[in-house]
């Protein structure tokens, strides 16, 4: 709590940030209003079309280590907050179900879904063909990654390219960035440079700590996550660059429930039509360019 306040105070020292902070706080106050706003008009029709989930309580598996998307609320640790959390609640409201949360490590998100211990995964997970073998995805956001490095970028890293040769990259187990770094290995070798090494951790905080402790040189992840880390440690960390990577973020649902998948997609469309998706991006200070109309990605 104390820390939270001090951070706000720090932000307030910059005039333009002050305005922004005010906007965020205002948005924070508005958020209950958004959450409690009557569901978009089309939702009544959807509940009639897909009555199977009305009144149910579903389990949303999350990896709550990504502030802005999903993390516990520092002011009330019994709650999860973030863009994904709000979006999930909106979908639930539209289809008539409520959500409870199951926190798991990132690599266990899809296994938890597949074993039936969870019904849905809305946790900033990138939809890839590989992952579509384990679950169906409804994509809802474009992906921009940030390259986190120590202040001053001592290794002069310029992206996921041969500037990473010989560097130690921290990554989360199961993240799509892992194979991207692995793909660099033969390229570095071809240029006669040492290969990058990978350090796999269980969550975001551990990856960031690895850079702070000097164990790793870089950590590539969602740009908002990287920004949050820089904001928390402005003297020690910086974002070297933002890169686009060819994936979309998706909501994962069980492969054997196509009707549920279609219902979630239809609800997402209604939410986007009502402008709620865009409001949520703004509320959570995310780049509105992330916005994406939904598609379904499933295994061939």
């Amino acid at each position, binding site marked *: *709590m*104390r*820390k*939270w306040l001090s951070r706000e105070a720090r932000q307030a020292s910059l005039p333009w940030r002050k305005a922004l902070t005010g906007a965020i706080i205002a948005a924070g106050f508005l958020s209950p209003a958004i959450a409690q706003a009557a569901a978009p008009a089309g939702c009544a029709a959807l509940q009639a079309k897909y009555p199977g989930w009305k009144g149910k309580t579903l389990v949303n*598996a999350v990896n*709550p*280590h*990504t*502030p802005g998307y999903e*993390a*516990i*609320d*520092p002011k009330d*640790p*019994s709650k999860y907050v973030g863009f994904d959390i709000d979006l999930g609640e909106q979908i639930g409201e539209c289809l008539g179900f409520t959500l409870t949360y*199951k*926190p*798991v*490590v990132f690599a*266990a998100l899809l*296994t*938890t879904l*597949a*074993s*039936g*211990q969870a019904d849905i995964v809305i946790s900033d997970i990138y939809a890839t063909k590989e992952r579509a073998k384990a679950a169906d995805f409804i994509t809802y956001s474009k992906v921009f990654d940030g390259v986190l490095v120590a202040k001053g970028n001592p290794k002069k890293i310029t992206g996921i390219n041969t500037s990473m040769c010989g560097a130690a990259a921290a990554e989360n187990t199961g993240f799509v960035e892992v194979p991207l770094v692995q793909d660099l290995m033969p390229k570095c070798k071809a240029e006669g440079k040492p290969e990058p090494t990978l350090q796999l951790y*269980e*969550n*975001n*905080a551990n990856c*960031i*700590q690895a850079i702070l402790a000097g164990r790793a040189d870089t950590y590539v992840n969602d740009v908002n996550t990287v920004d949050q*880390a820089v904001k*928390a*440690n402005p003297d020690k960390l910086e974002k070297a660059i933002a890169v686009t990577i060819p994936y979309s973020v998706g909501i994962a649902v069980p492969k054997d429930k196509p009707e549920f998948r279609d219902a979630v997609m239809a609800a997402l469309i209604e939410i986007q039509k009502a402008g709620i998706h865009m409001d949520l991006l703004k509320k959570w200070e995310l780049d509105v360019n992330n916005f994406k109309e939904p598609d379904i990605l499933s295994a061939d």
Partner: protein
Amino acid sequence: MSLFLHYLSLPYLLEGIELTLQVTALGLGGGLILGLVLAWMQLSRFWLPAALARGYAVIFRGTPLILQMVFAYDALPHIGIKLPAVLAAGLALACNEAPFIAEMLRAGVLGVDRGQVSAGQALGMTPAVLMRRVIAPQAIRTMIPAFGNESVSALKNSSLASVIAVQELTLRGTQLASSTFDFFSIFFASGLLYLLLTGAVSAIQLGLEWLLDLDRTTRARRLTDYLPWRRVDLTAKLAFSEKAPLAAEAVAQPEIMPPARLLTRAERAKRAATIARNNVAVAVKDLHKNYGAQAVLGGLDLTVRIGEVVALLGPSGSGKSTLLRCINHLEDWDSGTVRVGGRRLGFRDDGKRLSPQAVANERASVGVGMVFQQFNLFSHLSAKENVAGPLRWVHGMTRLDADRRACELLDRVGLSHRAHALPRHLSGGQQQRVAIARALAPNPSVLLLDEPTSALDPELVTEVLEVIRRLAIDDGLTMIISTHQIRFADEVADRVAFLSAGSILEEGPAHEVLTHPRHPLTARFLSVMQADKALEAVR
């Protein structure tokens, strides 16, 4: 610091403790139950349960707990078992703890002195009574430190439940660190919370050790002696405190009984004539027993009549102890028969072997008492309980009757003033006298004494022999004694049997054999024993 204190008192983290404790309790409780079953299977007489238990240990001790957690949580639902996360974590922890706890239990059980187990069997205790009254109370005492270890380890291992979404302390800590970036304050706070929990386990362990310390009741052992900075050597102090009452006793009590009178030659002849008319008490026929390729008993025959005292002499390894242990069926043999009071101990009428439980009941009803070289008193029980306990557990006496009988017998062996002492606070001679009282308590028809004075310091031998002498002469008890005390055999035994290499070389009236041995081996053995005596006298 203020952040650290803030997180230390944060209800969100404190609530995590509850789940940590739930998973730990499930793991330890379930592990204990499963561990008991596994230990029982491993100690079983049958090979199949032992092999299954071994196989279980290989799998669950040999794979990481984190995999077992994920398996219980994510794999079991595929076969229709969808446990809530806390139960899945508890199940995995229990399955993982079980083989460790089973090994602790097994070590505890096997660590109990085998001699005490033999003594319990000889008293007619069934395996269940033996386990409950003799083995478990001692094993549990030795297992407490190991169990304390295991509890601390389970408590820490419960943090792995974080991988399957149990909101315990560790998972709450990492999530909080992710959303606040206060990495170290949070981890120090949750570390301290873990320390408080494991500290509480240590305190419980020390408290239990103190509660179950046998010396707590007999002597002033204070709880503070267990504090780590008190350098009280728990064993040395006992040895010291033991001396004091002994010395006092030696002064206060000029040792007990006047010596029994010796029989005259005429009385001996009369006694022999009476015994010859008595029924047979023990009949051993053509007894064969091998240990591997080595023959221990080679066709041994021995008949003992009611009221007769037979001394078994012979060099070490000649089969004296084995013969005694076969007579009350503490050991199996290869061929031949043993009858006590006309019954084949350990076999049904048709020759089939009885279960250990049935053998125990038969031992109790036939009444074969046994006194061992190493005394084999139940070390966790007082002198009185050593005598009274078996009367209650085996013969169903009331506490009042058993206590009365125990007091009477301790009085007879001159130890009523030490009734409440633990065996380890008694001298060897006193322990052996208690052991004799214990063997006599159920009124056995035959008393077997296996070198009853061999483990005693020379100055303590007399008091024990005196007790035995009285039993023979005053009570007319049927006894078979293996001994190296030639003079004692001469005075007490009606008959002497000289064993060599598992069979009887020579037997006959005690005085006759001992003074005029016919077999050269007997003669040589006797002269060696006599020479030893002479040497000792010179020293």
